[in-house]
């Protein structure tokens, strides 16, 4: 991050943004258009957020020409990075910004979901707050709809406000075709082939919550987006005990994916293994 200030001392005519987005650790950022940056309207309110705002903006837009000492230059450099991040949060929810981030998403530039059942689904950067200096960036998986910590500490220290709380959700509103199919596939802890009782009880309860949701959505004629077992809830004649049937189907489907051995076919809940 400090390379710019030290290595290319007098060379402030090089493209600052090019340097910024290609710096190690800045892989999550896309390049903000010159056009967007030079339209003052887009920067409304940022002058009070950023120290030496005008110098920082000059630096970002490659028109910086102040003769100053290294300490001052470093301060302005820091401000420029902060300003870029704050503008970035606004830019990536514009049509052009969304498209740029989408390209990066397709290349999995933001990493892949660590959850085994998500099959390396690409992630999106997001913030837990829109206010700077509060929460570091997190990564959102659209498949499991959960958030994860970046693997590298370089990324883990980026301010989440540079991506904001809305961007990743807006992306899927604007591009609904990109919403990944949802899956009920999940991990079930076992001991010698037997499901662990406490975990199995929770799984049953969660399956009930999921079924309730799918019934609600069906009533409202909203697509639930589940690729597996889309028909499971359609059998109205089995209304007397649909929950159990659903669970059976879901479990049968789940098992092969988990590499269930012969012992996996048993259905007992183990509270304690007989060994140990």
């Amino acid at each position: 991050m400090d390379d710019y200030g030290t290595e290319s001392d007098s060379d402030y005519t090089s493209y600052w943004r090019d340097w910024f987005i290609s710096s190690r650790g800045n892989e999550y950022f896309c390049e903000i258009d010159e056009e967007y940056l030079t339209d003052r309207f887009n920067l409304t309110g940022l002058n009070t957020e950023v120290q030496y705002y005008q110098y920082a903006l000059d630096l970002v837009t490659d028109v910086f020409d102040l003769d100053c000492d290294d300490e001052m230059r470093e301060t302005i450099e820091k401000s420029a990075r902060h300003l870029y991040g704050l503008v970035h949060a606004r830019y990536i929810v514009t049509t052009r910004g969304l498209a740029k981030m989408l390209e990066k998403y397709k290349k999995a530039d933001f990493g892949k979901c660590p959850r085994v059942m998500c099959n390396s689904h690409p992630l999106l950067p997001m913030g837990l707050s829109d206010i700077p200096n509060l929460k570091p960036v997190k990564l959102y998986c659209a498949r499991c709809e959960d958030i994860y910590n970046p693997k590298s500490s370089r990324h883990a220290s980026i301010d989440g406000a540079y991506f904001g709380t809305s961007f990743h959700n807006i992306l899927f509103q604007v591009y609904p075709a990109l919403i990944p199919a949802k899956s009920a596939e999940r991990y079930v802890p076992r001991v010698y082939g037997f499901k662990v009782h406490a975990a199995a009880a929770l799984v049953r309860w969660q399956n009930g919550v999921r079924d309730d949701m799918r019934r609600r959505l069906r009533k409202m004629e909203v697509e639930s987006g589940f690729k597996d077992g889309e028909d499971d809830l359609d059998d109205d004649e089995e209304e007397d005990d649909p929950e159990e049937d659903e669970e059976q189907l879901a479990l049968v489907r789940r098992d092969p994916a988990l590499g269930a051995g012969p012992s996996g076919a048993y259905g007992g809940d183990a509270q304690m293994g007989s060994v140990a």
Partner: protein
Amino acid sequence: MSTSSGTPESWISSFCSLLGHEYFAEVSEEFIEDDFNLTGLQNQVAMYKEALEMILDVEPEEDDDDDEEEEEDEEDISGDVRDGPGGRERRHHSRVASDLSVIESSAEMLYGLIHQRFICSRAGIQQMSEKYDLGHFGVCPRTNCNQTRTLPVGLSDIPGEDTVKLFCPSCLDVYVPPNSRFQTVDGAFFGRTFGALFLLTFPEYDLSRSGAETASTLGRSADELTMVNGMYARNIAPGLGRGKIYEPKIYGFRVSELARSGPRMRWLRDKPDDVTVLDEARRFAEEHGAESDDDDESMVNNNNRPVASARRRRPAGNPTLRQRQGLNGSPMNVDANGAESEL
């Protein structure tokens, strides 16, 4: 590790110190030397006898130049150890190099399969708990799990099917290890049982603590010691439930469930506010299971059935006692076969 009686350059130590082998425990020689623990493994690896000798650092009987071998051992500490555990033999027996490479890979396979069993034994799981305390297995990548320590597991007990994964006791889910060096480690060497067995063996671990904090046990307050389904209530998926589910928002407004892009996966990270209802849900399910005509033998999945039928065999009445067993039962229960034993 401390339980190993071998010198630092033993085959087992050098195997466990290889890059990517950080999750492995050092199987004790006593465990390997007990034939009972190796039952059935003879047919699973090629050149079983030679592989076993290699693991135990037993000199092959047909060895011709013992003296030179001794000298080489000293140098190996610095040099060949990183190449692979069998490095030292390679130079001396070049004419049987192909055999040796087979024995080497057989030894690794055999060690892995023994390891799968060892870490489920009393000594093995104890050693793994020490590694767990030291944070050797990393932490859960899920933000709401707040750096809970994870456990290495396999999704299959059969080698060659999948690589090692990390099981998080806080969200009860499995994750790909963050470093690619673990993506060549066979998951079967840890197996499907270890992760869950660990939780049941050490129910007192305070799982809501993050990896950054020191490992500790639960407090003694009555609230913390409430049991549900054989586990301390506080330890049932502490990373799930209200406040631990990601809430998608756009400009501060929650995205509606009715939107095409609305939330669909909350259930995966949900948990009842009061986990004791899980016990009641189970009883409810059991009663419904009992009324069903379905055959108990099918047992494909409905894990209520065997329990339900076993319960019907018990003398009727005394529901209070039954309830108390359900809520405060010992974690040492095995109710899969309908039998309860206080061990």
